[in-house]
């Protein structure tokens, strides 16, 4: 031991060494280039090849975009203007702008209604997406679906009011009786809601929509990107709670509930969406009472919601399975009952784990709304494939139209993806 305390090992710093700037070439863009693009011979070659590829792609695309023609009224005129040069014919977008966004039957003087609904959607969705916002804004979120329905479809305001009252009655019954017995509260709520809807529906006078403040627009007149957005927003927001319920039901100890959920999920997941859509457009009417004319939009919403709910349920089941058993036990040992444990402990964690998967399903679902063009609904793709490409003026304009459709979808889907990544960072509390 004594050897180690001799002078050769002891050391005392004589003062603080002042900081000095790093040597040249060790900071800034030069260092970055050297480290990331030209770190060795192979990397340098690859960098140059990549630059070459980017150049070749841009050299083809840029002239096409920059030479684009925006103001003609048919493809033939476009070709005249271009006189054989490379260039896009974007005129189709400007000329058919309204059709691409709203479909070709929505009354032109009523476009402000879907526009307003879209703006209000952003207000309604904000407190759901960004939970730092005041919780009172959620009241508007709750009213929004009925408001948006009234704005877009128009007609008598009594219909959405009766619908809202039905939900309110159900919520009230559940609040009152759900505490003592969940089953009584749950089924009582459903019964109350239906009672209000049936009685309220009978009270709305025949022809109330004829001279309504907002002109009634039937579902078959909806179209364009508006239809995609409506289907996407409705189905995502309905399938998330349904998916959670299915995932929890699949884990249930009660065999009946468990098997209903398992069969539902496995069946719906095992069937292509397009067949479900055909069922919606052709066959679903058989399941409803003979006289009822259930709206095609509603039928499609039901089918897409079922489809994505089955996927979301499986994603959430993965999240539930990833939680340690100790979390359930800790919640139990503190005396929390099942709904409390799920709502406060299990689901917040399971949903957080499931965010990437849920977003994956949501993005997929939003893009799948274009499939409704197959059952002759005129969404964005339906408009392009149908009325626009079939017209004599624009027959043959593929790149511009489909590129535009791709761009619209990309913007929305990229936004969803960025939001989900922000959300994941925001919720990261485990500091692993």
């Amino acid at each position, binding site marked *: 031991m004594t050897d180690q305390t001799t002078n050769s090992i002891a050391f005392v710093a004589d003062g603080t060494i002042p900081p000095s700037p790093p040597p040249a070439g060790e900071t800034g863009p030069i260092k970055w280039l050297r480290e990331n693009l030209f770190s060795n011979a192979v990397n340098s070659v690859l960098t140059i090849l990549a630059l070459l590829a980017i150049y070749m792609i841009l050299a083809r695309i840029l002239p096409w975009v920059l030479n684009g023609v925006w103001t003609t009224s048919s493809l033939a005129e476009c070709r005249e203007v271009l006189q054989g040069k490379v260039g896009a014919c974007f005129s189709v977008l400007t000329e058919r702008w309204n059709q691409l966004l709203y479909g070709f039957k929505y009354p032109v003087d009523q476009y402000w209604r879907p526009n307003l609904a879209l703006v209000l959607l952003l207000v309604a969705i904000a407190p759901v997406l960004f939970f730092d916002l005041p919780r009172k804004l959620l009241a508007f979120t709750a009213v929004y679906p009925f408001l948006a329905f009234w704005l877009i479809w128009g007609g008598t305001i009594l219909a959405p009011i009766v619908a809202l009252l039905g939900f309110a009655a159900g919520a009230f019954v559940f609040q009152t009786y759900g505490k003592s017995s969940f089953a009584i509260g749950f089924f009582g709520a459903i019964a109350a809601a239906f009672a209000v809807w049936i009685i309220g529906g009978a009270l709305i006078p025949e022809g109330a929509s004829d001279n309504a403040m907002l002109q009634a627009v039937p579902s078959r007149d909806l179209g364009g990107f508006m239809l995609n957005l409506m289907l996407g927003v409705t189905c995502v927001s309905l399938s998330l709670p349904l998916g959670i319920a299915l995932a929890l039901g699949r884990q249930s100890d009660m065999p009946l509930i468990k098997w209903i959920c398992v069969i539902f999920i496995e069946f719906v997941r095992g069937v292509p969406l397009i067949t479900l859509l055909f069922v919606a457009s052709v066959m679903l009417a058989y399941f409803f009472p003979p006289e009822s004319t259930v709206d095609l939009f509603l039928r499609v919403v039901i089918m897409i919601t079922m489809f994505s709910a089955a996927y979301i349920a499986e994603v959430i089941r993965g999240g539930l399975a990833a939680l*340690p058993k*100790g*979390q359930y*036990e*800790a*919640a*139990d*040992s*503190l*005396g*929390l*009952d099942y709904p*409390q444990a799920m709502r*406060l*402990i299990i689901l*917040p*964690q399971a949903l*957080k784990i499931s965010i990437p998967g849920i977003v994956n399903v949501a993005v997929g679902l939003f893009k799948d709304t274009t499939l409704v063009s197959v059952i002759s609904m005129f969404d964005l793709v339906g408009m392009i494939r149908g009325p626009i490409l079939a017209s004599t003026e624009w027959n043959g304009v593929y790149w511009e139209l489909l590129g535009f459709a791709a761009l619209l979808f990309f913007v929305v889907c990229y936004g969803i993806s960025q939001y989900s990544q922000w959300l994941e960072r925001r*919720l990261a*509390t*485990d*500091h*692993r």
Partner: protein
Amino acid sequence: MSELMSDRQIDRSKMQVSDEVAIEINGMNKWYGSFHVLRDINLTVNQGERIVIAGPSGSGKSTLIRCLNALEEHQQGKIVVDGTELSNDLKNIDKIRSEVGMVFQHFNLFPHLTILENCTLAPIWVRKTPKKEAEERAMHFLEKVKIPEQANKYPGMLSGGQQQRVAIARSLCMMPRIMLFDEPTSALDPEMIKEVLDTMIELAEEGMTMLCVTHEMGFARQVANRVIFMDAGQIVEQNEPEEFFNNPKSDRTKLFLSQILGH
């Protein structure tokens, strides 16, 4: 083990066992499938008792205390906790769980909630305590386990010992009459074991009824008023710590003690 004993004088003034029965187990049996894990367990615990349950792994000691708040179901026999019989009635189970605190080997804190929220969650939702009062009580118990400054952090930012002390505080916030400890120090580094044991000793000094499954024989010797030795699903021997350690009766106990104290 012995470091702990010399550490501080233990105040036994409040460690009094009352006549009131806290837990009564009568002829309890439990099976996992066809495997008989708990065999004819009979045990009466009075209010204020500190019981340490020891035994080799797989002897059923954790299962026994997990039966007491119905984390595990027993198939035969009768368990009465704090005057309420454990049955399939969910109301009874929730009532017992809110009276019985439990501390787990792996802490099981809720990682998505802050330390303070971990402590106030059950009082607010189960006991319907007003939020402000629940927070005051939580801070009181966090001070008691000596980590009030961590209240607004998340569990992931704390050391193992700190997390286990939070877990103890979280249970105490429900004002339980009985505390169950399921190997509370087995997942901890040696340095952190002491801070958790100190907290448990303080709890014992205040007269809490405690059932601890632990391998800390120093703690058993110092704090427990009764040591229970289990093997193969049955209670093999129980005695006062002094007698248990110095003068074990059964051969199985002697072997166990020689193995864990022998080095």
